C-alpha cells in the first residue's frame, strides 16, 4: 500500500506536459457552449401536434419552440392533469449551473497554466461529480413534475416519469428526451479530461526516476518540509 501511495503522490505532483495542457484547454473551451446552447431537448408529438412541441433546457433557462409558444402550450395542456407550470423561476439549477460551469472553467484554466497531474485529477473528479449531480437533479425534477399532480385536476392520471433519455408514450403524446449540443460538448469535456489524465499519468509514471532515486527524492522532500 505504502509504495502505491508514495508512487501516486509523486505522480500527482508531476507537472503536466504540453499535450495534456492543450487538451485541458480544449476541455475548458468545450464548457463555453453550456452558456449559449441547450443542454437537453424534449420533443412531444400528438395527433393534434404533428409538428411537435419542443422544450429546450439551457443551463440558465427554459425555452419553448415556436418562439417560446410551445412552453405556454405545454403548460396549458399540463394544467388539465394538474401538473405545475414549467417556469424558469422554478429551477434553482438555473441559478447555480452557470456559476459552477464558470468556476470549473477557471479551475481548468489554472490547470492549463500551473497544472500538475493532481490538479487534473481534482478537476476530473469535480467535473464528474458536477455532471452526475446535474443529471440526477434533472431526473429528479422530471420525476417531481410527473408525481406532484394537483388532486383537484380535471383529468386524473397516474403519476408518471417523463423520459430522461429516449422516447415514451404518455396518453396521446409521444415524448422524446435527448441531450442537446452543449451536453455533447460537456461529454467532450469529460472525454478530454479522461484522455488528458490517462496521458499525463502514463507520461509521469514513465518519467519517474527509479524507485531508489524516487525514495531519495521522497526523503529529500520530507526533509525539506
Amino acid at each position, binding site marked *: 500500500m505504502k509504495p502505491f501511495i508514495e508512487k501516486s503522490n509523486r505522480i500527482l505532483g508531476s507537472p503536466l506536459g504540453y499535450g495534456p495542457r492543450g487538451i485541458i484547454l480544449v476541455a475548458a473551451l468545450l464548457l463555453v457552449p453550456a452558456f449559449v446552447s441547450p443542454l437537453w*431537448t424534449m*420533443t412531444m*408529438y*400528438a*395527433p*393534434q401536434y*404533428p409538428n*411537435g412541441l419542443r422544450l429546450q433546457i439551457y443551463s440558465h433557462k427554459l425555452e419553448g419552440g415556436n418562439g417560446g409558444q410551445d412552453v405556454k402550450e405545454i403548460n396549458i395542456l399540463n394544467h*388539465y392533469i394538474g401538473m405545475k407550470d414549467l417556469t424558469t423561476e422554478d429551477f434553482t439549477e438555473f441559478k447555480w449551473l452557470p456559476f459552477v460551469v464558470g468556476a470549473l472553467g477557471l479551475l481548468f484554466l489554472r490547470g492549463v497554466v500551473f497544472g500538475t497531474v493532481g490538479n487534473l485529477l481534482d478537476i476530473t473528479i469535480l467535473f464528474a461529480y458536477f455532471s452526475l449531480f446535474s443529471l440526477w437533479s434533472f431526473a429528479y425534477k422530471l420525476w417531481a413534475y410527473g408525481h406532484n399532480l394537483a388532486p*383537484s*385536476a*380535471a*383529468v*386524473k392520471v397516474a403519476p408518471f416519469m417523463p423520459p430522461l*433519455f*429516449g*422516447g415514451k*408514450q404518455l*396518453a*396521446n403524446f*409521444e415524448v*422524446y*428526451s*435527448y*441531450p442537446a449540443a452543449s451536453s*455533447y460538448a460537456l*461529454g*467532450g469535456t*469529460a*472525454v478530454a479530461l*479522461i*484522455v488528458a489524465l*490517462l*496521458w499525463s499519468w*502514463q507520461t509521469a509514471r514513465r518519467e519517474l526516476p527509479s524507485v531508489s532515486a524516487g525514495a531519495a527524492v521522497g526523503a529529500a522532500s520530507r526533509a525539506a518540509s
Partner: protein
Amino acid sequence: MHKQTRTVRRGAIALGLLAGALFLARCPPSAPKGGKAAATVSDLQVAAMKTYVAPGDLDEFYLFSSGGHSGQVYVYGVPSMRHLTTIPVFTPYPGTGYGFDDDTKKMLGGLTWGDAHHPALSETNGDYDGRWLFINEMNGRVARIDLRDFKTKEIFGPAPNISGNHGSSFVTPNTEYALMSSRFSIPIPKGTYASIDKYATEYKGVAAGIKIDPQSGNMSLGWEVLLPPFDWDLGDAGKGPSDGWFFLTCYNAERATGKLEVTASQRDRDYIVAINWREAEKAAKEGKGDMVGGVKVLDPKKIPGLAYLMPCGKSPHGVDVSPDGKWIIGSGKLAGITTAFNFEKVMTAVRNKNFTGDEDGIPVLKYEDIKDAEVPVGLGPLHTQFGPDGWAYTSLFVDSAIAKWKLGTWEVVDKVPMSYSIGHLAAAEGDTMHPKGKYLVGLNKLSHGRHLSVGPSQPESSQLVDITEEKMKLLYDAFTEPEPHYAQMIKADKLHPIEIYPKAENKHPLAIWDVKDAGPVRQGDKVTVKTVVVRSTITPTSVEVKQGDTVMFAITNIEQTTDELHGFGLLDYNLNLVIDPGETKTVTFRADKPGVFPYYCTNFCSALHQEMQGYLIVKPK
C-alpha cells in the same frame, strides 16, 4: 514495442469514449412514430375515384352540417364534399335576402346570431323521412327548415326557463317531440335573482319537449321538466324498445361554480338522465306541474316515474342510442372508455327500485346494475354513430381519431386518425334505426394548416371516411365554415325539393302577376308598392313617396323558370331581398331620408340584368 502497445491502448480508450459519446448522440424523430404511414399511390387513386363526382353528376347523400355560431346550416354533397348551399337560419344572410324581408326579420326576433349545434332530420318509425330539418340554438330556440324548399319556416322560442339550449334538438322516432335543455342552469323564471353561492339550491336545470305537429311541423311547448342544476349537455331519443324516453347527459354533477374545468371535474361519475316523455306528456295533459315563467313545469319530486339518473363516466358529452334501441352509449369525455348501458337492465332496476339515492327527488340507479360493457375505445370519447350490422363509430377528441367497434362483442377493431381533434361525427343515416353505412364524416375542430393558408381565422375541417370495408379509409379533406358541430347525412333520393314556387300555391294577399297591377297605393302615411320582378324590369320603375312615410314593397317574382331569382337592393336604406320564382316577399321601412335612391336587381338574372333598376324618390317634408 512496449510503447507501441501503450499508444494502441490509449488510442483504444479514446476511441471507446468517442464511441460511447456517439451512442448517446441520439435525436427525437422528425415526425411522430404514431402517425399512420403515408397513403400509397394506389390508395390515393382509390380515394380519388370514390370521391370524384364528374361534372353534371350528382352526389349520393346530402350532408346537413350545423354552422355553430355562424347560425346557419351548410349543405354538402357526399362523397364529393362540395358545398351545395347555405341555409340561413339564425343569422341574416344577404345572399338570399334572409333577415331583410318582413317575415324572416320577424322570425329572427331581433337576434342577429345564434349558436346552432345539432341538426335533426324528422323521422318516421325511427328513419329519416326527408320532411324537415330541426336545429337548436343556444338562446333557447329551435328552428324548422322545410326540406321541400330548403327554407327556414319557423323559429320556436326563446323558450321560457331554458337557459343555454345546447342539449337539443334530437327528435323522437315519429317526430313527436324535439328536445330542449339548459346547459347553464339559472334561477327560474328568467329574471329571478339569486347570488352565485346559492347555485346548488336556487339554480335549476330544465328540459323541455317541443311538440311537433305531425301535419304542419309547427312547434309548440309540450312540457317542461325540472332538473338539478347540472350542466345538461347532449341527448338522444330512445327508439324501438327504448322509444318513449329521452336520454340527456350532464357534466357538473358537483353543482360547482367558478372555474368549472376544475370544480366540475371532481367526481368520477356524472349522469345521463332518462326522461319518460310519455309520462311527461300525460302529466302535462292532466294539468300537473307548477306555473313558472308562464308555463307548467313538472317536478320529478312530485311525479314519480318521470325521470331516473344513470351514472356515467366522468363528464360525459355525447349519448347515443343504438339502432335497435337496446343500448344507450355514453362516453365520459375525461375517461378512456365508452359505456354501453342496457335499456332492459335500466327498466329492471327501475322496477326493482334499485336506487342508491336521489338528486332533488330523481332516483339514482347503480352503474353496475345497468351497464353491459365498458368499451376501451381510446382517449376523449365523445360521440357515437352507427353503421349497419352492429358497427359503432366513436369519435375520440384527445386521440384525434375515430374508433370502430362492434355492438354486442364490444371489440374495438380499427382506428383512423382525424386531422385534427374530432368533435361530432356523422355516418350515413347513422343515428336512425337503419344506418346506411358507406360514408362517415368526421367534424373536426382544428385544421392546423392542412389547407392553403388563409390567415389566422382558419376554417374547420370535415373529413370523409370510407366505412365499406373492415378498415376505415380516409378519403377526402373538406374545409367547412365555422363551425360544424353535429351533422345529418341522408340518402339523396329521400328528398324531393321543388325548384320553383308554383304560381297556384302562392296565396300571398299582396301577390300580383301582371305588371299592370303594379304601383303604389297610399293609405294615410302608409304606402304599399305592389311590385313585379321579371326579366328584366322592376315594375314600377320609379316610386315617389313623402319623407316620413312608411313604405312597404311587396315584390312578386312572376317567373316560373328554375334559377331565375331576382334581387331587390335599395341603396342607402340597407335593404336587400332575393325573391325566388313564384315567390312574394315584403319589406317595410320608414322613408326618413329625403332624396333619390336607386333600387336594382342584385341577383344576376339575364343579359339585361344591368338595366333592371328603378328609383325611390323621397320628397322632403
